[in-house]
């Protein structure tokens, strides 16, 4: 296994190569209506939470580009993993 393959296998790769990823989506609309959510669902976005004009959900990695280009979408942020802040 070369370095690239090991990096991808580790799940820590910067670029997403398929698989489902968690995303936070900032919308250009004030509050998404059913039609808006339905349109975004066509990209494979599964919304788990609506926070005002922001969505939390999952999407196939290869669909992120399409979602970003949707005029209703201001920003797509791929979720990152945080850590507890205790110090051993």
């Amino acid at each position, binding site marked *: *296994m*070369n*370095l*690239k393959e*090991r*990096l991808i*296998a*580790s799940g*820590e*790769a*910067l*670029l997403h190569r398929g698989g489902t990823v*968690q*995303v*936070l*989506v*900032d919308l250009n609309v004030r509050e998404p209506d059913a039609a808006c959510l339905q349109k975004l669902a066509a990209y494979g976005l599964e919304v*788990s*939470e609506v*926070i*005002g*004009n*922001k969505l*939390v*959900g999952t999407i196939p990695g290869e669909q992120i580009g399409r979602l970003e280009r949707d005029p209703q979408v*201001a*920003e797509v*942020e791929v*979720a*990152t*993993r*945080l*850590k*507890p*802040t*205790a*110090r*051993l």
Partner: protein
Amino acid sequence: MAKPRKPPTKARGTARKRPPSAAAVATASARAEPEECPPAPLPPLASSKLDPVLRLTAVRAAREKSGLRDVAVAAAASGPQELRRVTAVRDVPLGVKFLAASLSVPSVRALAKADLVQVLVDVRDAKAVAVQVAQWQGETHQVTATTLAVHTPRARLQEIAALEDVRYVESSARLRPHGDLAHLSSRLVRAGVRSVPQTGRGVLVGVIDTGIDAAHPSFTSGGTNRIVRYWDQESGVEHTAAAIAAGQAAASPDVIGHGTHVAGIAAGNGGGSPNQRYQGVAPEADLAIVKTSFMTADIARAIRQVFDLADQRAQPCVVNLSLGGHYGGHDGTTVAERAVDQLCGRGRIVVVSAGNEANDRIHAGTELPRGAAQPARWVADLELVSRAIQGDLMGLLTVQVWHQHEDDLLVRLRSPNGELFSPPRDGSQEFDRSVFFVEAVHQVAPYSGDHSTTFQIATVAQSQWLRGWSVIVEEDRGEGRHGVQVGAVHAWILDREQGHFSAGFTRSHLIGMPGTAYSAITVGSYASRREWTSRDATSPNVVLDQVHLEDISYFSSPGPTRDGDTKPEIAAPGQWLIAPLSQRAEEAWVPLWTRLAGSEYASMQGTSMAAPYVTGALALLLEKEPNIDWAEAKRRLIKSARQDAFTWPCWNSRWGYGKIDVEKLLRIEP
């Protein structure tokens, strides 16, 4: 500014209380003599091996033998208040006053009057001492090889202390609750009692963390568990109050122990500790717990769920996030952070730990000069750490460089063999070599318009490929480019375990995300404890000499944010706090030496511990003013912050506006 420092003391595991000199004891005893009594020679103390309270009771016993009156001890028999009053007049040593303040009334009476007193004796030879005590009609129980619990006639105290095999005699007394050191420092407790009437009753405290040991007695009051909901994001299970009462939360254990400790600092009631000594800040608050995956999306969801629950229960709510990361612009504009802003409001507050990276060299930055003769250039060298990934050692590091939208800059990565890598604008590129692999991504952040360039480096674990990497930033004066207009450049290595900058690093801008969220209350840590008795039999007396009490913790991440926001706002006790220990916590996460002897409590440090302290304090404020909004709560925290010789008189990148003062926070009005 010169900071006062404590002189170093003994190494961990070897500490002993140092008894005062015989001369000091004699002076103190003489001062305790009431003025109206005729001067009378006191019987000499057998030794200075008695603790200050025992010294008083031993003096009294000796006086009774000689028929003399002792006002101070008579007052002690009436209770600690009287003792404090009399001792203040008589100028009895500070140690006596301090101990008197920390003891319960029955204990002080018992020490002063009882024929038999209970003491702990530090001995060289337990057997020899036990034989001697038995001859004096006393009882002994061996606690450790060098510690005896002794019941002895009061009149024999001096004789016990005089035994050659006895090193020190300490009163064994019932302690008052609320006596933890952090609470004294934060002014939550004064003279052994809480300084504010609020306890968090009616307030919902949300803790989004590694889970909780729901069966820990600290979370139960009057037979009712105060955890009203427990979501496990990993398993997808939601435990209701009834399910928690039925013990079903055991299916979502806290094996790291972090969440249990954090929840206990904010809202534990001290159950299972001697006299509830290790009570949290808001011991009657309700708790909503989320065992999170630590993904930013899940954390945003969790905050929403907790606030929704607060809506259903019509309770004010404060959520604690003792977590963080360094992906993002460090200016509060990630979608996750703006979601936090959107969720905060009246009676809805989020508290976040600042992070622990003050010494970790994971930030580098500069201000490029504007209009210089030559194009401005900046270099930051970095070094990877070899670690096991997928079973093999390799170097893996991600560095993210940010600059403002006004500037046109070229951001490149230079490898140890001198190759230069950069991504296309608004795009990404891979560079695959046999000994290293680089991914590079450029993005214009949609919200701020600022530029980020991210490099991920994977290398073989050989020193010549782990070292010698550099980030190079150069002013772009090409056609149609503006060059340097503002000039601020910042770079972050995303995790201190990946590596560090070897040149160009700074000790600023280290607050993690979501601590940089605008509406979040971000908390730094200072030291409030450095000693405890652990259950590690090889080294039970833990004394951490390098901890400077009341000073900022060496690890506490400094601000400000990249856009200059004054974070952290406040500092709270976070360096060695004692709080509940999860029964299922693994030793890798909570080592034996941090676990307290004799109770299910542990000592931990980190801004993770400081944040829930403030969360608990805000629960008290929300009990008083349920509709206070996050901005006013933040203003009150800042206004009530305490400054002393360690802090600064104004905002400081490590302290924020100063130390939390719970009493003042609850007292000040809008």
